[in-house]
């Protein structure tokens, strides 16, 4: 438990959280749990792709992300929710309805249905995400964001979630090496992989040491400890002490929500909430998800022409001439060669 590089992050304690943070963590935990059920139900009713019928959240992701400085003015911390989306996205202010719209590819989605997956980019909220990320690209990109913060002397930090399988990718190591070399204010969370992982025997503490960054391993710790571990890593980053690598140990599926439930159970005493307060928080989270689930099935997909969006800021590409409005009968097509002045 030392703040030095390659050691554990400096703080692992369970001091009570303030009421505002405790309320947020309770709300986000409930929201994530209801959203997990909502996605599964939608997948089973064909409102979403069937592969999502086994959709699982990691409740710890909302807690870890909430420990960052989340703002909506584009001046706070940034986060790549990655494989743990939407948990971190919820902490950064995304709504369940936005998430479902994005997941379902609705025209109202944050990416106008031109991207899907589970996370998207919203720079005002500090979210940098995309589907289809490969090989540690997120760590590279977020290291660059962190570099920009340091470049401008800003009190900002970048948080990136990857799966442990990123260890197999050279890209991840490039990003980590760069972040370590320039002591970028970056926190990297490596979650356990869901499928077979040839890198499962790699000692992440040793990896962290090789890049000169701090390391900490988190498992089923209570939300207070998760929160304060990231908060401490963030303070280190802002002080210019470099990145922290957080290894997130696998939780048994049936145990995933236990820390949240225990936290809720003791919130009355530790944060001073009444039973009525706790119930109100839970009901508010449920209502938001129920509203999103009910609405998503009624929303149409985007009009096909929306595919012609700008790929450069100069404007969208031209549509194929075969898809334009056909000319009226007996009227030459505007680009008919026979109408050109030099045609013979």
């Amino acid at each position, binding site marked *: 438990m030392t703040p030095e590089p390659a050691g554990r992050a400096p703080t692992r304690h369970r001091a009570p959280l303030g009421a505002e943070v405790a309320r947020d963590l309770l709300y986000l935990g409930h929201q994530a749990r209801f959203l997990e059920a909502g996605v599964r139900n939608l997948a089973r009713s064909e409102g979403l792709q069937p592969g999502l019928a086994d959709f699982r959240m990691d409740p710890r992701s909302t807690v870890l992300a909430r420990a960052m400085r989340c703002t909506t003015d584009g001046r706070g911390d940034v986060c790549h929710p990655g494989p743990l989306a939407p948990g971190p996205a919820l902490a950064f202010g995304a709504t369940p309805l936005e998430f479902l719209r994005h997941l379902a590819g609705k025209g109202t989605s944050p990416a106008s249905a*031109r991207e899907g997956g589970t996370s998207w*980019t919203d720079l005002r909220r500090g979210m*940098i995400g995309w589907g289809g990320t490969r090989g540690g690209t997120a760590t590279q990109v977020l290291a660059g964001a962190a570099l920009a913060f340091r470049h401008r002397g800003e009190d900002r930090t970048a948080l990136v979630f990857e799966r442990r399988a990123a260890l197999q990718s050279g890209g991840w190591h490039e990003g980590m090496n*760069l972040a370590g070399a320039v002591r970028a204010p970056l926190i990297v969370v490596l979650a356990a992989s869901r499928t077979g992982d040839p890198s499962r025997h790699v000692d992440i503490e040793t990896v962290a040491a090789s890049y000169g960054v701090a390391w900490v391993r988190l498992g089923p710790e209570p939300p207070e400890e998760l929160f304060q571990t990231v908060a401490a890593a963030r303070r280190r980053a802002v002080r210019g002490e470099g990145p922290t690598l957080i290894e997130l140990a696998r939780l048994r599926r049936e145990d995933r929500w236990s820390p949240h439930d225990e936290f809720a159970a003791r919130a009355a005493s530790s944060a001073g909430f009444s039973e009525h307060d706790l119930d109100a928080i839970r009901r508010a989270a449920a209502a938001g998800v129920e509203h999103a689930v009910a609405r998503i099935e009624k929303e149409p997909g985007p009009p096909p022409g929306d595919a012609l969006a700008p790929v450069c800021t100069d404007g969208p590409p031209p549509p194929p001439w075969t898809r334009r409005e056909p000319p009226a009968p007996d009227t030459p097509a505007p680009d008919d060669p026979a109408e050109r002045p030099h045609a013979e």
Partner: protein
Amino acid sequence: MPNETPAHVARTRSGEPATFLEAIAEALWEEMERDERVFLMGEDIGAYGGAFKVTRGFLERFGPSRVVDTPISEGGFTGAAAGAAHMGLRPVVEMQFMDFISPAYDVLTNYIATSLYRGAGPMPLVVRGPVGGGNRGGPFHSQNVEMAFFHTPGLKIVYPSNPRDAKGLLKSAIRDENPVIFEEHKGLYRAPHCREVLPAEDYAIPLGRARTALEGDDLTIVAYGLMVHRSLEAAAELARDGIRAEVIDLRTLLPMDDEAIAESLRKTGKLLVVHEDTRTGGIAGEIAIRMNELAFEWLDGPILRVTAIDSPVPFSGELEDYFLPGVRDVVTAARYLVEY
């Protein structure tokens, strides 16, 4: 920090002719002075001044936060440039040799090029570096990389042929809101015949506009980069036989100035495309189909191409000279076309 400006970025201020390399350095220097969001990343660009010394003196003037020496990891630092661009900076990434851009192909094509379309916002960054053969660099230090990226919507590709254009186009690339790949032919960097006095004013040349390097009416030769010079040499030889070739310098490959090519073709009726890149999947094929769509009825002969051979760039001088397209190839193809 010293106030003295290094000589190689002050040619224009002192009224001296600048080489192609010095024009690049001037553009970078002036843009960094003009806009504090502009910063450089690359291997050995700081203390060492870059493999070709383009950024010599930059570290002393702008400091390590704006002249970032990176690890040897093109994918890693190009990805980091994307993150910095998201945060409002305007990174200029140097590839020590553009051959080494391939490790960054993933992040360039999958992440950077798709950013705006995905709703993740514009991605103002430049990836620049030396390309091209003729320096006996062999397979790994001589490639032209444009067509590896030409097929990717969301990118722009610039490939200048002379110092004036290099400076003006690089300034536009840095000011552009989109990712730009900027290719600099090594054979032009210090070529004595390329030195020229650059305009004293702060000028930028718009991306996407070709220029007519030589007017003529017997055939159109379209080229870019070093091949503009080869084409002009060929045109001079053809002129001795009374053949007037028009030479179009594309300057920007993506977006391409189709209308400039078509306009010339409407005048000459014959089209020859010259590029140093290899033949199959080269830009000549794309130009041919575009002119087929735009100006088919003006064609008085087949569209021909002069290119490198479909092989890796060989190391030996004898082999490389045979591999690369030369003036003789251009003259031969042009004569054939004119007589067609």
